[in-house]
């Protein structure tokens, strides 16, 4: 599909600075929501780490060096229950294997960024950074390195680490953090991000199946394995939806959304799945 054949939408080459600014404003707004989530979750992690006997510097090392969200929580639980380190490492690798798919999905967008900066970007690649940045890229139809840094650092890394520090230092003074609903922030943020990425029936099917498989497998084995199973099986089932029924929509009606699956530089000469050639 040639990019300039749709007369109802501006061509990709006509993406303007106001388009980018508008998308960045939405990125920042969404990042604030994610930042609240990261802060709440990071604070809860700090509390949990303190309870498990982590010193402040150990908790901070976990958040800054590993920077692995749910895997950190799991690690705290296993440290508290004296699980051997190899088991914790294996669990961490399993839980974070999904990032390979995220990084591959972002790769075409960021191919023109220098190797060193991509290496730095990789450390910041979380569920939240992926969802925020790829949504932003799709809206404007191109990569926006500054947007990625906002998504990675501003929305997650800074609030997560500051909140971890606050949690591990101040946690002893809060009798029961669950009273303040901190535990619900993470799942609410995750489902909200998932909804933001659903732009057709394939994504919807993938999300529903991913959730169902995740819960069943988690009950049968462990939450970590359930999440990985849901995240890998859900997309497989989503692909079964025929392209003719996928009904890929165009959020915001932008050029990027019109070519939802046509990542820059890839398959631009072919109709993307779910979008009829014109």
């Amino acid at each position, binding site marked *: 599909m040639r990019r300039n054949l749709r007369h109802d939408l501006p061509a990709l080459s006509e993406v303007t600075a106001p388009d980018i600014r508008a998308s960045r404003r939405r990125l920042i707004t969404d990042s*604030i*929501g994610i930042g609240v989530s990261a802060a709440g979750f990071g604070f809860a992690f700090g509390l949990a780490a303190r309870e498990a006997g982590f*010193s402040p*510097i*150990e908790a901070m*090392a*976990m958040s800054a*060096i*590993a920077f692995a969200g749910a*895997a950190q929580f799991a*690690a705290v639980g296993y*440290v508290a229950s004296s699980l051997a*380190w190899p088991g914790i490492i294996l669990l*961490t*690798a399993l839980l*974070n*294997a999904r*990032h390979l*798919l*995220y*990084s*591959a*999905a*972002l790769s075409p967008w960021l191919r023109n960024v220098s190797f060193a900066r991509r290496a730095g970007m*990789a450390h910041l690649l979380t*569920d939240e950074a992926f969802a925020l940045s790829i949504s932003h890229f799709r809206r404007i139809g191109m990569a926006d390195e500054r947007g990625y840094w906002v998504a990675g650092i501003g929305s997650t890394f800074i609030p997560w680490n500051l909140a971890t520090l606050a949690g591990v230092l101040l946690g002893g003074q809060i009798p029961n953090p*669950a009273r303040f609903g901190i*535990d*619900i*922030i*993470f*799942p*609410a943020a*995750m*489902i*909200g*991000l998932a*909804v933001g*990425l*659903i732009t057709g029936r394939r*994504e919807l099917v*993938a*999300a*529903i199946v*991913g959730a169902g*498989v*995740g*819960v069943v497998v*988690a*009950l049968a084995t462990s*939450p970590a394995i*359930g*999440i990985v199973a*849901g995240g890998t099986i859900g*997309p*497989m089932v989503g*692909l079964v939806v025929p392209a003719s029924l996928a009904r890929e929509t165009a959020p915001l009606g932008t050029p990027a959304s019109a070519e939802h699956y046509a990542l820059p530089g*890839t398959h631009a000469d072919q109709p*993307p*799945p779910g979008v009829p050639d014109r």
Partner: protein
Amino acid sequence: MSTNLILLAVLMFSVTYPSRALGLLAPGLDRLPRIAFAYLQLVGPAVLAALAAVSVTVVIGGDDVPSFHVGIEWIAVFVCLAIVARRGNLLFGVIAAVAIVVIARAAGLAALPA
């Protein structure tokens, strides 16, 4: 102050970073077949939905055995989902979810997590 667990953090980084970096740094991964990209497009919704679902429906008991959980958290997460789907405002959705849980627990309508 103990520093023993810093090594654990480094080891966790050593198994996490490759997953994050391989796609971004390895040449050629951006030339995957179209079906692979179609698959990757679906990974985000699936993983995030699985994370949310497992977080609110599966709890680990004192015996380390996963069990099914039904609670106010379901309603809170569903309300967040509905708000984001209808209004596109994640921050509002998260705040609403937290408010529901806090009010329900304060009113004694829901138990605090173990």
